[in-house]
Every structure is written in structure tokens, then in C-alpha cells.
């Protein structure tokens, strides 16, 4: 037997003979957050002997301890609904979601009722392994260490703290630069008699670096003092709201492209449900496929059920060890979509059922009888989240109606009584022929993406090019150019160049927030398709006098991008996409990267571009974000 631990950043292993386990169980769940609680509970109710460890004094994870009290997407169904029903929903007092503490009470009662052994103030120091099989943990309960043996150990810490104690191949953050999505500290205040919970969206950090974690957490607590002006200050989240942590190589994987192209997953544990959002506004540095969907096609509020295979919760080659929660085997873009509260509850519940079955049958997770498993989780209502497979548009009724009218169709009669601002979730289809008329509108994204997805790209390119040549309005012509550009057709370049030359702050209108600027889209595409001829125009965008253009100061009041008043989103989008595109052109044409870095350093030497983006101070999130971006382009 070996004992492994993470010490001073390195994985340390030592032989461990004759280990006495103080406690034993079938399923040991480490981390009493959203997934951990429901995993422990369902495993127990399905007959397993379960111990649940929590490092803090309070259970409930980000939901109860981090003030993430509302539900943002996530599928419906499963045990958590019973706890929701029990929780008093005070419409006068709580603006959004249920009272987090009452919910915490019901989660505590649930665990007591099912008989889960809960140990709080208890953290895991290391793992015991026999080859690739995890046998248990060494834990610390605040006073002494104790060894806990288990048939299955579940890392439900959200951040893979136990995964890091193994040989699992792990990855941190975005491929391009290793950065995580921004974290938040959620504060609560009462205003006009309503309790409101809000994000501080505090910038990015590597939370595995304890110095960075501490510094940025304290900085965001300092900045959160601004909540004192909003109303009656209630509290800050006990937990720092880390949104993304490590991922690992698993027996299976959830990939962004698999989601977008609706790949059939095998042995699905459950279906998550979310949009494919990624916090932060740093779109110019994202991967190309993400930009294709989110930026160029402007489909940030499209939602989709996401099949999470069981194998995505098992580090490759390991036995007796799984993860639960937002730490799974996936890429950074799909991870952003598999972390909603309701999905975490349901993931945990489904996993608990599966682990109980595995324990009873004496097999690994992937060997349980899948048909029996499906029957169990479906009867619990936890499996599919209430949405049939496919894409959905999540927006207002008025936006839906407008899209239908553009397509020459009538809205579904079932929405006849809806008000314009009522929320609808309607199925989407990506048929080129059906959606092409949208290219005539200010919401062309579905058409653009349909063209990109079409199997016959050459045929579609010809079709779109002919539409571009005959387009009778500028809007139509520009949208055709964008669709053509996304197809990789260089015939789009002259019109894309024209969009940039005539640049404005026009934005597409598909979404209820995060709509992308057409100029920024055109710049992004020029970076992919353009030649050296584009460079003078792109460098012109970085000149200081650029900020004097009216487009940077006339953003329509109805534009929504997380409602942040301290950032010039237009300028930020143009600046970042321009820098990214210049880099791409340089790279593609074999131009000197050193020469480019020197140019960027000269352009950005006095920091004035930072002040064009934001008037916040050093140390504040927006300031740090733009500073960090500029630093990265000057030193890549």
C-alpha cells in the first residue's frame, strides 16, 4: 500500500504498511457541497454505508456558504426539489432563489434522516492506494488524524484536491494561457425590503497558489465594501466563488465540440443543462471554436442538455475513485457549462445511486448494469433535467417573436398570452435554408452558425457569396460577409475590411445579454483570413486618437453585458480583438514576433489604453484584466 500526499507542490509517495483504518464505509464523499451532499444521501438511501467529510464547519458549498442562492439554468428534477419545496420562499424578502440558510437546514435534515455520517471540520491530508486503487484517506478532524477506509472515495471538493494527490494527468485553465474564468465573491444586501445577492466578478487567479488565493480574496472583500452603499449590508459569502478549477484525463471526456456537434455519449450518468457561457469578457483569447459559436455567431444564450458520461468522473486508470461536482474530465469550455447548482445536485444524486449499485455488485462504476441504473435515476427524476436533446434559445418572448417573423413564421400559439418580456425557451434548428432569411436582420447568429455547421461548406459558401453580391441593404451584405468569413472564404475579406473601416458600436440582438459588436466580429475574422494588407488598418485601431471616435461613447442604454458600468466594452472588444488578429496575421505570414512585441510595447508604453478601457484603479478587477491582457500581448 502507498500513502500519497501533495506536499510543497509535489506529489509525495511513501510505502504504508499495516494501516489501521479508524473508520470504514462503502462510499466516502469528501466535500459537503451541492454534489457531495446529494451523492452521499442517495448512496445511503440506496443501501450503501456512507461517510461525508467537510473541511469547514458549515455544509452546503457555494449554494449555502457562497451566497449563490438562485438557480441559473441547470436541469430540473430529483431529490433537491423536495428540499426546495420545504424551503420557505419569501417573495417579499428574497429577490431570487430560496433562502440559502433554510435550504442548508433541509440539506442537514436530509443527511440526518438518511443516516449519512457527517464529519465537519475534517480535511483529507492524503490517500491510501494499492496500485491504481484508492483504498481510503488520511484525514484531520481539527484535533487528530484518522484513517478512513472506503470501497469508493469521491472527490467532491470542486477543485480536485484529492485528484491532485494521484498520478492523474491534470490540466489547469484555458489552453492558450492556463487562465481560469474569473472568480467572484458574492455579497448580499437588502434594498427596498428585498434581499439581493450579487457577484463582484473579481478577476482571475490561480487559486491553487495559496498566496494568490489569499491576496485576491482579501482584495475582493475590500472592494466589496461598495455594497455598503447599495443598501443594508447583510454578508459576504463564506466561500470564495471559484468558478473553474482543474480538469483531468478521465476514462471519458466531455468536450465543447462534442456538445456543439451533439455527439452521442456512452453510459451517460445524467444530463446537465446550461448555456455555453464562460465568465469574463476576454473573448479575443478564447479558442477558435468557442469564438465561432459565442462571438461570431453571437449565440451566448443558446442552451443545450449536455450528456455527462460516467467515464468523465473517473480519472483514467483509477479504481475506487471518482469525482463529483464541477471537477471532471472535460475541456475548459464544457466545464463552464457543467457547474450549475441544480446540475450539481442531480449529478451527485445520480452518482450516489451508481456507487451504491457498484458497491453492492462488487464492481467498478463502469461495470454496473446500465439499464437498471437508468431505471433508478429516471424514477427519481434526476436523469435528464426536463429538456429533450437539442438546442434552445433562451430569451424574451419579443425576441422569439421577432425571429419567427423574420423567418416568415408565426410564433407558437402556446405563447399567445405571453408578455414581451416574458421568458421563453424554444427549440432551435440549424437548417441553412430555413435560417438564411435571418441574415437580413440584426439577429443573424442562427443563420451564421447554420452555415458554419452545414456539411456542404463549399456549396453554402457559394450560396452566401451570391447573396452577398446581390444584397440590397448594408446590414444584409455585412451579415453575409460574416457568415462567409466564418466559412473560411477569403471573398469575405473586402466587406469585412469595409465593416472595420466604417466601424461602429452596432451589436447583434439575439441574446438578452452579452451581444457581440459587429466591428469586433469583423476584426476577429480579418485576423483569420486577412493578409498583410490588413495590418495598417488594424494598427490604426490601436492609435490613441481611436478613442475619440463617437462609437466608443454612445453605447445604447439597452446594451447589457453583465451591467458593468466601469468598463468601455466597445473599446475593450475592439482593442483585444485587434491585438489578437495582428498576432495571428504575423504568425501566419512568418513575420517576426519580436518585432511585433516591440511594436506593442511602444504602443502601450504609457498605459493610456488602460484608461480608455476603464476608470477603475490599480488592484480593481477591470483594471487588472486589461493590464494583464496588454502585458500578455507585449510578452508572448
Amino acid at each position, binding site marked *: 500500500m502507498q500513502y500519497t*500526499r*501533495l*506536499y*510543497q*507542490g509535489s506529489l509525495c509517495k511513501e510505502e504504508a504498511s499495516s494501516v489501521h483504518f479508524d473508520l470504514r464505509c462503502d462510499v466516502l464523499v469528501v466535500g459537503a457541497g451541492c454534489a457531495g451532499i446529494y451523492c452521499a444521501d442517495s448512496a445511503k438511501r440506496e443501501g450503501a454505508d456512507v461517510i461525508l467529510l467537510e*473541511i*469547514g*464547519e*458549515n*455544509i452546503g458549498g457555494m449554494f449555502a*456558504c457562497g451566497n449563490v442562492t438562485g438557480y441559473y439554468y441547470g436541469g430540473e428534477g430529483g431529490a433537491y426539489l423536495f428540499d426546495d419545496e420545504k424551503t420557505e420562499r*419569501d417573495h417579499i*424578502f428574497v429577490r431570487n432563489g430560496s433562502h*440559502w*440558510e*433554510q435550504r*442548508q*437546514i433541509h440539506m*442537514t*435534515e436530509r443527511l*440526518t434522516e438518511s443516516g449519512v455520517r*457527517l464529519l*465537519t471540520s475534517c*480535511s483529507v*491530508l492524503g490517500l491510501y492506494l494499492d496500485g491504481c486503487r484508492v483504498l481510503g484517506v488520511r484525514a*484531520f478532524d481539527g484535533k487528530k*488524524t484518522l484513517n478512513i477506509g472506503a470501497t469508493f472515495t469521491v472527490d467532491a471538493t470542486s*477543485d480536485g*484536491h484529492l485528484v*491532485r494527490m494521484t498520478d492523474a494527468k491534470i490540466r489547469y485553465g484555458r489552453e492558450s494561457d492556463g487562465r481560469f474564468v474569473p472568480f467572484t465573491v458574492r455579497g448580499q444586501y*437588502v434594498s427596498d425590503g428585498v*434581499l439581493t445577492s450579487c457577484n463582484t466578478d473579481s478577476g482571475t487567479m490561480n*487559486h*491553487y*497558489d*495559496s*498566496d494568490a*488565493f*489569499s*491576496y485576491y*480574496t*482579501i*482584495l475582493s*472583500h*475590500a472592494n*466589496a*465594501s461598495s*455594497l*455598503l452603499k447599495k443598501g*443594508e*449590508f*447583510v*454578508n*459576504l459569502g*463564506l*466561500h*470564495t466563488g471559484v468558478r473553474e478549477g482543474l480538469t483531468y484525463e478521465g476514462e471519458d471526456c466531455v468536450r465543447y465540440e462534442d456538445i456543439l456537434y451533439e455527439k452521442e455519449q456512452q453510459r451517460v450518468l445524467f444530463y446537465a443543462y446550461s448555456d455555453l457561457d464562460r465568465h469574463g469578457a476576454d473573448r479575443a483569447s478564447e479558442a477558435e471554436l468557442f469564438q465561432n459559436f459565442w462571438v461570431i455567431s453571437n449565440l451566448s444564450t443558446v442552451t443545450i442538455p449536455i450528456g455527462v458520461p460516467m467515464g468523465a468522473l473517473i480519472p483514467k486508470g483509477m479504481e475506487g475513485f471518482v469525482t463529483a461536482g464541477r471537477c471532471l474530465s472535460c475541456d475548459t469550455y464544457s466545464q463552464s457549462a457543467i457547474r450549475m447548482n441544480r446540475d450539481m445536485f442531480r449529478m451527485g444524486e445520480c452518482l450516489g445511486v451508481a456507487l451504491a449499485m457498484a458497491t453492492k455488485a462488487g464492481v467498478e462504476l463502469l461495470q454496473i448494469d446500465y439499464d437498471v441504473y437508468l431505471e433508478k435515476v429516471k424514477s427519481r427524476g434526476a436523469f435528464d433535467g426536463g429538456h429533450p436533446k437539442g438546442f434552445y434559445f433562451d430569451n424574451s418572448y419579443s425576441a422569439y417573436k421577432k425571429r419567427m417573423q423574420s423567418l416568415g413564421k408565426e410564433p407558437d400559439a402556446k405563447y399567445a398570452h405571453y408578455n414581451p418580456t416574458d421568458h421563453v425557451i424554444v427549440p432551435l434548428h440549424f437548417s441553412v435554408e430555413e435560417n438564411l432569411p435571418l441574415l437580413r436582420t440584426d439577429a443573424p447568429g442562427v443563420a451564421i452558425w447554420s452555415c458554419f455547421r452545414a456539411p456542404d461548406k463549399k456549396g453554402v459558401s457559394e450560396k452566401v457569396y451570391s447573396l452577398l453580391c446581390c444584397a440590397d441593404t448594408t446590414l444584409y451584405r455585412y451579415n453575409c460577409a460574416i457568415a462567409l468569413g466564418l466559412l473560411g472564404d477569403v471573398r469575405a475579406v473586402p466587406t469585412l475590411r469595409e465593416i472595420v473601416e466604417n466601424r461602429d458600436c452596432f451589436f447583434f440582438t439575439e441574446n438578452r445579454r452579452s451581444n457581440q459588436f459587429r466591428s469586433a466580429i469583423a476584426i476577429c475574422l480579418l485576423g483569420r483570413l486577412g493578409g498583410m494588407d490588413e495590418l495598417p488598418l488594424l494598427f490604426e485601431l490601436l492609435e490613441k486618437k481611436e478613442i475619440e471616435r463617437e462609437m466608443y461613447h454612445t453605447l445604447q442604454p439597452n446594451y447589457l453585458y453583465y451591467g458593468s458600468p466601469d468598463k468601455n466594452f466597445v473599446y475593450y472588444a475592439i482593442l483585444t480583438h485587434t491585438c489578437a488578429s495582428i498576432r495571428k496575421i504575423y504568425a501566419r505570414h512568418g513575420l517576426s514576433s519580436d518585432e511585433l512585441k516591440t511594436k506593442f510595447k511602444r504602443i502601450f508604453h504609457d498605459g493610456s489604453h488602460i484608461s480608455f478601457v476603464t476608470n477603475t484603479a490599480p*488592484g480593481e478587477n477591470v483594471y487588472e484584466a486589461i493590464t494583464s491582457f496588454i502585458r500578455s500581448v507585449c510578452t508572448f
Partner: protein
Amino acid sequence: MIYDTLLIGCGFLATGYATQKKNTCIVEEHQMCDSAFTLTLPSFQYTPYAPKTAEGECLFAIFRSLSLFSEGQQNTSAFECALSKYLIEKEIRPILKCRVIEITEREDGIFKVLVQTNGGLDTILAKKVLHTTSRVKKKHMTVLFVSEDYPSAKSTLLSLFPDSYTESAFYDGRYALHIPIANEYDENTAKVYIYKKWNEATVPAKILYIAPLFCGVVSEEAFSDLRFTNPIEAFEYGITLAKEEK
């Protein structure tokens, strides 16, 4: 690196101490730098205290700028914001989410402290270790509640929870109830107990929320924020402590 002092537990006393000693490391188990006041809510009554040091004045100025003291009351829930601002301004860098696992003394008298952080296990070496956290005697839990009929609510609650007491809690219509909790309860089961009793009775008040950690009395000799009702006083006590050691 060997620190002169390792302070276990952040907070106002520890911060005051750290302002006087260059080579000090502060570690804090929770994800907040003020767990004593902010997370236990021991009192909303402002005990006037005039700072006697420049550092105390600086901290007091932050409290004033955030309007955390007002008419005999203090906004204890927001102390974390004030302390965080001070730490950032003064570039003092505690390590949060840092759990002390084991302390051993080497032959040379240096303390070897095994800690667990977000990064994993690590060792901190220090010539001296000072605990600013203390075992709480007679633990209490603080409930913040909302009521439009405080006298009636108070009467009901005091009979529902014997030996408890109430006070105003800074904002209009907000009050705090401090309930003694039996030893066998942890924070989660204590909350269940409180909510259950509250809901079973007809209390003309709604619970806003319950402090996440127990508060209570600590011994008079303890180096702990919980000895103090005024955070500036706790801070300057830390300064005094450090100066006396020089």
C-alpha cells in the same frame, strides 16, 4: 525561510501585532481575514474606543469611511471589508484557508508547523508561534432577525430560548439574538435546532440569517479578538503585545 513569529488566526489583534513585526506570518483557517467578528457576530453594540496609535487611527479612519460605527452601534457584519481594506493598504498578506495540522519543535527551538492550504500541504518555520484563536467557553449562536414588533418578538424569543439575550443590530428593524448552544451541537445541527424551535412557535419575526460560527466567551488571558467588543481596541492590543516583546 524562518519567520520570527507565526500567528495562527488572522483578525484585528493579529493584524495589529503584524504591523510591529517585520518578519511575521499570519495564517487563517477560514476564507475571511476576520472570522471572530464577521463570522460570529458577537455584538452590535459599539463600545467607544479612541485609538492611541497612528496605525489605530488609520484603521479607525477606514471604519469611519465605511460608516461602520453609528450612534452606539457597530455594523459587525461588514468588519471583514474594513480589515481587508487595511490589509491591502498596508500590504500585509495573511494566508487564508490555511489549516494548522501539526506543530513540532526542532532541537534548535524552531517550530515546524505543518499546514494545509489550497495548494496542498506545506511547512512553515517560525521562532515563535502565537495562537490568536481560542477555545470558546459556553458557546453561543447569533441569529439576525427582522421584526416590526420587537418587544413582542423579544419576549417570545427569550422564553423560547432560555438564557439568551437580544440587542439591536445596526439597521432599523434588525435585531440579534444570542442563544447559548449545548456542546453536542455543531454549527449545522445548531441551526436546525434554532429553526425548528422558531418555526414551531409563533414568533413575530423572520430570521435574516445565522452567524456561520459559534461565538462565546474566551478566557481573559487569551490572545483573541473575542476578548474585545471593539475591533480597534483588539487591533491596538496586538500592537501593544508586539511592542512589549521588543
